[in-house]
């Protein structure tokens, strides 16, 4: 199996992100701290074959987020995300 076969997208972590942010997050826009490209979270690359979720920028492949959930705790590394912008109230 190729690494490319394991690539998913932000839709695959919609449930996990909603646990953390208590909001629908796939429409949020993330700005890559490496290349500055803005992507909808639903459109970013996601790998779930690591012990957690690894989120990468589709433009430059830099790691945007790493999220580990276990034993009732979350570890969230957002070093690679310069900004995460989302609407708090769609109404």
């Amino acid at each position, binding site marked *: 199996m190729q690494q490319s*076969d394991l*690539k998913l997208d932000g839709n695959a972590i*919609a449930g996990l992100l909603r*646990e953390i942010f*208590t909001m629908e997050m796939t429409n949020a826009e993330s700005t890559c701290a490496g290349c500055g490209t803005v992507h909808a*979270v639903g459109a970013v690359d996601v790998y779930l*074959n690591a012990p957690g979720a690894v989120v990468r920028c589709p433009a430059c492949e830099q790691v945007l987020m790493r999220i580990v959930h276990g034993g009732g705790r979350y570890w969230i590394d957002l070093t690679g995300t310069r900004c995460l912008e989302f609407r708090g109230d769609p109404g």
Partner: protein
Amino acid sequence: MARAAVLGRLTWQLGEVAELIQETPRVSSLVIDLPDWPGHLAGQHVDVRLTAEDGYQAQRSYSIASAPEAPRVTLTVERLEDGEVSPYLVGEVRVGDKVELRGPIGGYFVWRAGDARPLLLVAGGSGIVPLMAMIRHHAAAGSAAPVRLLYSSRSIEDVIYKDELAQLVAGDKRVAVAHTLTRMQPSGWDGYGRRIDGEMVGEVAWPKKDGPAVFVCGPTAFVETASGLLVESGYDPAWIRTERFGATGG
């Protein structure tokens, strides 16, 4: 309903399997009664969780196949032999069994009937499932948007929703379906018989001047190929929303 479907903390709830539909030899639809369902949007999914007697839990995401207008939620699941969850949902589960799930989840890969743009749907295998929710939503809401579906399957036996799609096309001039069968074609087959390529996309997809809304769903390699071909044909990447099914999962 749209608001309820995207906001708030997710909670696990128990649904009861009300009906099972064998779609293909490897694919079944589970029609589920959910007392506390807040409503959903076409394209959203749910997380299903199984708990073993020793407490071990396995969780997978499955797309919702039913329209938001439908009275019950339908999941269509492909059985992956080395999977942890799908072999239970396709083959083991019986009508009346309880299934633990949470949702609806997602807001990016979603189509609303109020979107008047021509709609292009591109499905690889069980990637048809969320797109079928959109097609059913289109029909139930009486949307005027014209729809074209390009649907790639291995063989005619693997085509999910084959009869329902044929009926929709026969009864609605706004809906067109192009099938391609990549491994085996029955005698007299008049659809495509190869993997998706630029010529096929050129024949099926809306001209770029129409500025369509595009949803592509399937295995990762299929999604990348299809969306790449659409961009090469001149489509604005911003028109295209994709959802990948991984080689893992199940």
